C-alpha cells in the first residue's frame, strides 16, 4: 500500500494522510457524523472524537484486562503455567516498583500502575506494526463501504495527544485529589504559596510552584506523545520516501524503536507513582 499510495499521492500527502484521524463529531450544520475530509474534521472543533485512536485504545486496554483476568482466574499457587508465570512476572515487577516508590497506604496505586504500564506498552507496540498494513486495509474498506477518498485510520493511540493527555490529566486530577485529601486544602495551597522561600516571598513562591505543578501532567502526557509521534513520523518518512526500499531502514528504526516503546511506558508508570507518592506526603 505504501508503494501504491506513494504513486498516487505526494510524500507530503501520504504523511498527512497517515497523521490524520478518522473523526466522528458534530458538523457545523449540527448533525453528527464522520468527517470525510481533514477540513471537515477541523471544522468540528472540540465536539469530535477520534474513532480510530479511541477505538484502538479501548480495545487494547480491554484486551489486556480481560486477558489478565482470564489468566488470573485460572492461576494456581502450586502449579503455575508459562502464561501465568509471564503475567506474574509483570505483576511482580509493577508491585516491586510500587513498593519501593510509593511509601504510603493506598490500594489503588498498584493496580493503577499496572494498568498504566501494560496499557501504554500495548498502545506503543502498535507503532511497530508496519504503517500501511492496518491503515491500508482500513482505507480500502473506507473507500468501498463509506465512500471515502482517502480514509485516515491511525492505529497508534499514543501518537494522539488526546490519548496521552487524557491519561496524564486523569493522573493530575488524582494528584490534586490526594493532595487535598491528605494535606487539606490549606496544606495543599500552603505548599504552593510558602515554599520554597517562606511567607514573605508568596508571589515568587507561587511563580515557581504553580508552573511546577502544572508542568507535571503536561510533561507526562507530551513526553509520551512526542516520543511516539516522532517514532511514527520517522516510520512514515521512511515508508513514504523509500517505497519498496524501505525495508532495511524500517527494520533498523524498528529495532531502535523497540527500546523507546517499553521505556516510555515504564517512564510514564514511574512518574505516576512518584507524583502520587508526593501527593500523599504530609510531613515537611
Amino acid at each position, binding site marked *: 500500500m505504501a508503494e501504491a499510495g506513494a504513486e498516487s499521492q505526494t510524500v507530503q500527502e501520504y504523511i498527512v494522510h497517515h497523521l490524520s484521524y478518522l473523526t466522528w*463529531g458534530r458538523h457545523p450544520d449540527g448533525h453528527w457524523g464522520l468527517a470525510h475530509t481533514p477540513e471537515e474534521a477541523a471544522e468540528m472543533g472540540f465536539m469530535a472524537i477520534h474513532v480510530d485512536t479511541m477505538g484502538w485504545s479501548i480495545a487494547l486496554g480491554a484486551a489486556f*484486562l480481560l486477558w489478565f483476568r482470564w489468566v488470573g482466574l485460572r492461576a494456581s499457587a502450586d502449579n503455575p503455567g508459562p502464561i501465568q508465570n509471564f503475567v506474574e512476572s509483570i505483576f511482580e515487577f509493577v508491585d516491586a516498583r510500587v513498593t519501593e516508590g510509593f511509601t504510603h497506604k493506598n490500594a489503588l496505586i498498584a*493496580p*493503577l500502575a499496572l494498568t498504566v504500564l501494560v496499557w501504554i506498552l500495548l498502545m506503543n507496540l502498535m507503532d511497530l506494526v508496519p504503517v500501511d498494513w492496518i491503515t491500508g486495509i482500513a482505507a480500502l474498506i473506507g473507500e468501498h463501504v463509506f465512500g471515502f477518498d482517502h480514509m485516515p485510520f491511525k492505529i497508534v493511540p499514543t501518537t494522539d495527544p488526546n490519548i496521552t493527555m487524557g491519561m496524564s490529566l486523569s493522573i493530575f486530577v488524582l494528584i490534586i485529589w490526594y493532595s487535598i485529601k491528605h494535606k487539606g486544602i490549606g496544606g495543599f495551597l500552603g505548599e504552593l504559596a510558602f515554599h520554597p522561600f517562606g511567607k514573605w516571598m508568596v508571589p515568587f513562591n507561587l511563580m515557581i510552584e504553580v508552573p511546577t505543578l502544572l508542568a507535571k501532567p503536561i510533561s507526562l502526557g507530551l513526553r509520551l506523545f512526542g516520543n511516539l509521534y516522532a517514532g511514527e513520523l520517522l516510520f512514515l518518512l521512511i515508508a513514504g520516501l523509500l517505497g519498496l526500499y524501505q525495508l532495511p531502514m524500517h527494520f533498523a528504526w524498528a529495532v531502535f524503536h523497540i527500546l523507546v516503546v517499553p521505556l516510555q511506558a515504564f517512564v510514564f508508570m514511574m512518574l505516576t507513582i512518584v507524583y502520587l507518592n508526593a501527593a500523599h506526603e504530609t510531613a515537611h
Partner: protein
Amino acid sequence: MDINLTIIGQSIAFAVFCWFCHRYVWPLFANVLEERKRTIADGLEAAAQGELKLETASRDSAQQLEEAKSSAAGIIDQANRRANQIIDEAKQQAQVEAERIMVAAQAEIEQEANRAREELRSQVSVIAIAGAEKILAREVDQAANEEMLTQLAAEL
C-alpha cells in the same frame, strides 16, 4: 494539535480500566502470590517440625532399644537361672528316686534272700533226715527226732 472529546473519552476509559484492574485483576494475582508465600512458609515450618520430630523419635527409639536390650538381658538371665534351678531340682529328684529304687531293690533282695533261706531251711530238714536215714540205714523214730531236727533247722 486537535484536542477534542477524545481526551474525555480516554479519561473515562482510563478510570474504568483502573477500576476494573483494581477490582477484578489485581486481587487475583495478589491472592495467588500470597497463597504461594504462605504455602512455602508452611512447608518450611513443617519441614523444621519434622526434623525436630525425627530427632525426638530417634532419641526415643534409641532409648527403647536400650530398654529392650536390658530387659532382654534380664529375661535371659532369669531363664538361665530358672533352667539351672530346674536341672538342680531334676538332679535332686533323680537322686531321691535312685535312692528309693536302691532301697526297694535292697529290700527285695533281702526278702528274696529270706525266702530262699526259709526254703533252704525247710528243705534242710528233709535233706538232713534223708542223709541221716541213709547214714543210720535204719528206721528212726521220726517223732522222737522231730524236736531235734526242728532245733537244727532253726539254727541254720
